[in-house]
């Protein structure tokens, strides 16, 4: 692809929505209040696994101020499945998960809902609802769920894919398998083999803004929903189906969104708010508490993985076996398939066997979390590769370079790679000053890779020109990380106008063309392409208008950086002088006289076609007395294809790194034997704070993605993948201990250091 030079892309304008955000004016989900609004509250199950014997709502219904009470039996049952963007989700599971029918399958699952004039009344009324349960034993780990005689969560669950063992009366929801070559021969030919088992805990996306919505269902069945969401069209389609409304009569207006990371692709409240509103004939506002967010929204899977890799003395990897078991939570659908596909993605390996298991357990149904499935699998593989490097006495980056995939290589998951930046990245990491900087006492350094496919799918965009030559661009993608700024920049680039004179906005499900979710690292790539195409349509129309003004053929009009250029010989109509180039504004001013308003629109379905690699270098210092680890230096490298707004690209890399560091060092759901989460708050669910981290250096690598006019690859998800392995490898270097269980929190570190010292003393 030829090197295109850009005027706007690659610069760092201040984001258009910025002033509203620094002044507190920007309206997030809970910031709206509608006239006549009621408040909704949920009664949640105190048991992790139980049959619902009876629900008596009479005391709640009798309370003054209570306007509607809802139980699951009142919602329609649906076998439909909607495309949640990139994966099909069983609507029935989503519906049952958000409001139980005959069984509860995780602690905190909602069993009834109340709408009342104040939140206090709603909560009190909910507490007066009497539910009798027949309590069952919960299963809380993949081992418990798959053990013979384990309590079965769903009688009708049938294992998808290739099952080993019975496909019914099981908690094994799915099994996938990938293989290549001859595994046994491969291991026979290996000079060195490393094998380890790993465990990672349930962790939450940790978005600071809890789920919130207001729903208003009118007497005619037409409804409006205001919600914080990554996918307004998902909210519309899923809420309508679950609440029993016609989606043709439902409009969803997305608020600003306070973080999502995949956790706001699913709906939890909106269908309930709609159903309550329909009963109460008033709008209903529902906002989750932080406690509810932890207990009853989808975190990502806890996992068990088993990795065995064999290499020759010269570092060539000849065989790999990866076995994954991921907790799906109470309903099927963990990201284990993606984990299986990412695990070996960076490597050319002639013989491998990957098996992946999706297992239901009595925990909340998992939801997507930034590169879903990849971090856990790559943590395991990158740890083993690091051990291999040690055994081979090879530099860990050199070992990876020796086996790295490149353009034309077949990915472990099947298709061949197009142009990718993995080798470029590895070479950049190797020569980065961080890699050779000296280390201090109790410090260690680790490196690890990450991979994500990066999404495509449905996007639509409209670009409308004003008579003053300014432009408005509308898409249906809520802006989580700065995509409005990037879209404005694209329009400015394509039309040659000032980025400040482009107004980017997020439409609702009526004003924006159908668009898949903000997620999957697809907005800048796929929606961006739609924006570029829509702007290009405006540009073509401007040339046609100029042609009318100059009375020439449209093919004769040229375009140059925001101006239409007349062909030689063209004359001004009034004066008869030679025609002069016109700016966008000048042509736009005449739109009424040349054919009417100028609107460009585009829609597309893009394949997943811009896979991304990241590699992180981490220095950690471990206090041997307290077991506390401190990240002392961190560098994130990533191939992003083309950085439209480098500040927000850097931001994605830094934010993903921080989440991965938290996952590696401190974050975990702590469950008691009854399946109740014991640390459902930000104090004890310990995410990184400012004093935990250093500045996070970023290196943006740009190996253009040929499918995108600017070369853009998705950037948002990859950066959460490398940190788990990078931190674990740094801990190995600092302590001599290969941690195979996350998080590497102080008690665990102390326990392992003490054990290692006991062994050393004993020997």
């Amino acid at each position, binding site marked *: 692809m030829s090197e295109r030079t850009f005027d706007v892309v690659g610069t760092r304008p201040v984001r258009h929505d910025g002033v509203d955000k620094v002044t507190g004016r920007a309206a997030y989900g809970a910031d709206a209040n509608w006239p006549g609004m009621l408040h909704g509250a949920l009664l949640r199950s105190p048991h992790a696994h139980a049959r619902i014997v009876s629900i008596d709502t009479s005391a709640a219904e009798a309370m003054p101020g209570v306007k509607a009470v809802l139980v699951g039996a009142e919602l329609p049952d649906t076998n439909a499945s909607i495309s949640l963007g990139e*994966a099909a989700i069983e609507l029935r599971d989503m519906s049952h998960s958000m409001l139980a029918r005959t069984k509860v399958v995780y602690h905190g699952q909602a069993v009834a809902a109340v709408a009342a004039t104040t939140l206090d009344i709603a909560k009190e009324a909910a507490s007066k609802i009497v539910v009798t349960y027949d309590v069952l034993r919960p299963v809380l780990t993949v081992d418990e769920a798959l053990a013979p005689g384990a309590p079965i969560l769903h009688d009708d669950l049938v294992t998808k*894919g*290739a099952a080993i063992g019975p496909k019914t009366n099981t908690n094994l929801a799915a099994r996938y*398998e990938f293989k290549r070559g001859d595994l046994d021969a491969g291991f026979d030919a290996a000079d060195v083999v490393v094998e380890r088992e790993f465990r990672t805990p349930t962790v939450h996306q940790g978005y600071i803004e809890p789920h919130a919505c207001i729903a208003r269902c009118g007497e005619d069945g037409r409804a409006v929903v205001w919600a914080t969401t990554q996918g307004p069209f998902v909210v519309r389609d899923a809420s309508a189906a679950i609440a029993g409304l016609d989606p043709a009569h439902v409009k969803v207006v997305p608020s600003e969104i306070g973080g999502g990371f995949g956790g706001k692709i699913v709906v939890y409240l909106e269908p309930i708010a709609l159903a309550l509103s329909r009963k109460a004939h008033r709008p209903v506002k529902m906002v989750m508490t932080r406690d509810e967010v932890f207990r009853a929204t989808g975190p990502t899977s806890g996992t068990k993985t088993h990795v065995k890799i064999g290499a020759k003395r010269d570092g060539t990897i000849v065989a790999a076996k990866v076995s994954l078991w991921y907790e799906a939570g109470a309903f099927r659908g963990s990201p284990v398939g993606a984990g299986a596909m990412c695990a070996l993605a960076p490597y050319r390996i002639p013989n491998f066997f990957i098996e992946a298991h999706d297992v239901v357990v009595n925990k909340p149904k998992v939801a997507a979390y930034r590169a879903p499935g990849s971090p856990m699998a790559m943590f395991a593989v990158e740890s083993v590769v690091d051990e291999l490097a040690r055994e081979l006495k090879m530099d860990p980056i050199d070992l990876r370079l020796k086996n790295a995939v490149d353009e034309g290589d077949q990915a472990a998951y*099947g298709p061949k790679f197009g142009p990718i930046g993995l080798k470029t990245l590895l070479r950049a990491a190797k020569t980065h000053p961080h890699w050779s900087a000296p280390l201090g006492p109790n410090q260690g350094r680790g490196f690890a890779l990450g991979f994500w496919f990066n999404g495509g799918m449905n996007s639509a965009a409209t670009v409308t020109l004003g008579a003053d030559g300014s432009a408005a661009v509308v898409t249906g993608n809520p802006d989580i990380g700065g995509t409005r700024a990037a879209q404005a920049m694209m329009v400015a680039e394509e039309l040659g106008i000032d980025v400040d004179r482009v107004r980017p906005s997020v439409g609702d499900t009526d004003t924006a063309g159908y668009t898949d979710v903000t*997620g*999957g690292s697809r907005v800048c790539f796929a929606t961006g392409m739609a924006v570029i195409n829509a702007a290009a349509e405006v540009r073509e129309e401007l040339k046609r208008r100029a042609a009318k003004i100059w009375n020439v053929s449209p093919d004769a009009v040229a375009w140059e950086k925001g101006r239409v250029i007349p062909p030689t010989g063209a004359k001004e109509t009034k004066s008869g002088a030679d025609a002069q180039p016109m700016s966008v504004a000048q042509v736009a001013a005449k739109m009424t006289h040349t054919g009417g308003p100028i609107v460009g629109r585009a829609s597309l379905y893009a394949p997943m076609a811009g896979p991304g690699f990241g590699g992180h270098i981490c220095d950690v210092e471990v206090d041997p007395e307290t077991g506390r680890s401190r990240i002392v230096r961190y560098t994130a490298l990533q191939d992003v294809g083309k950085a439209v707004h480098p500040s927000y690209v850097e931001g994605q890399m830094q934010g993903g790194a921080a989440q991965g560091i938290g996952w590696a060092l401190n974050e975990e759901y702590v469950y008691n034997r009854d399946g109740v989460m014991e640390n459902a708050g930000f104090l004890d669910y310990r995410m990184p704070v400012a004093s935990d981290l250093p500045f996070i250096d970023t290196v943006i690598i740009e190996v253009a993605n040929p499918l995108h006019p600017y070369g853009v690859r998705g950037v948002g*998800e990859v950066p959460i993948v490398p940190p788990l392995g990078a931190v674990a490898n740094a801990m190995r270097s600092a302590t001599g201990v290969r941690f195979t269980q996350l998080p590497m929190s102080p008690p665990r570190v102390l326990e392992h250091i003490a054990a290692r010292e006991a062994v050393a003393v004993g020997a």
Partner: protein
Amino acid sequence: MAIVHLPSGLAQFTGGVESVAIDAPRIADMLAELRRRFPQLADQLDDIAVAVDGDIYADPGYQPLRADSDVHLVPRIAGG
């Protein structure tokens, strides 16, 4: 003929066959042909993504196949 590769996990529904040569103009035709040749595979294809010459379609439909396309079936992946 496009060559369609199945992940090894689906081989149990095709009697062990992991690669199939199919002459089809579009993904939908290719999937229909797979269902015809391997009836037991049909249910497993409801939730599949299709990669054509490296590009993964999470919603496989009427996208065109070339005569020499390299096609892989992969599990549907969700982003976050």
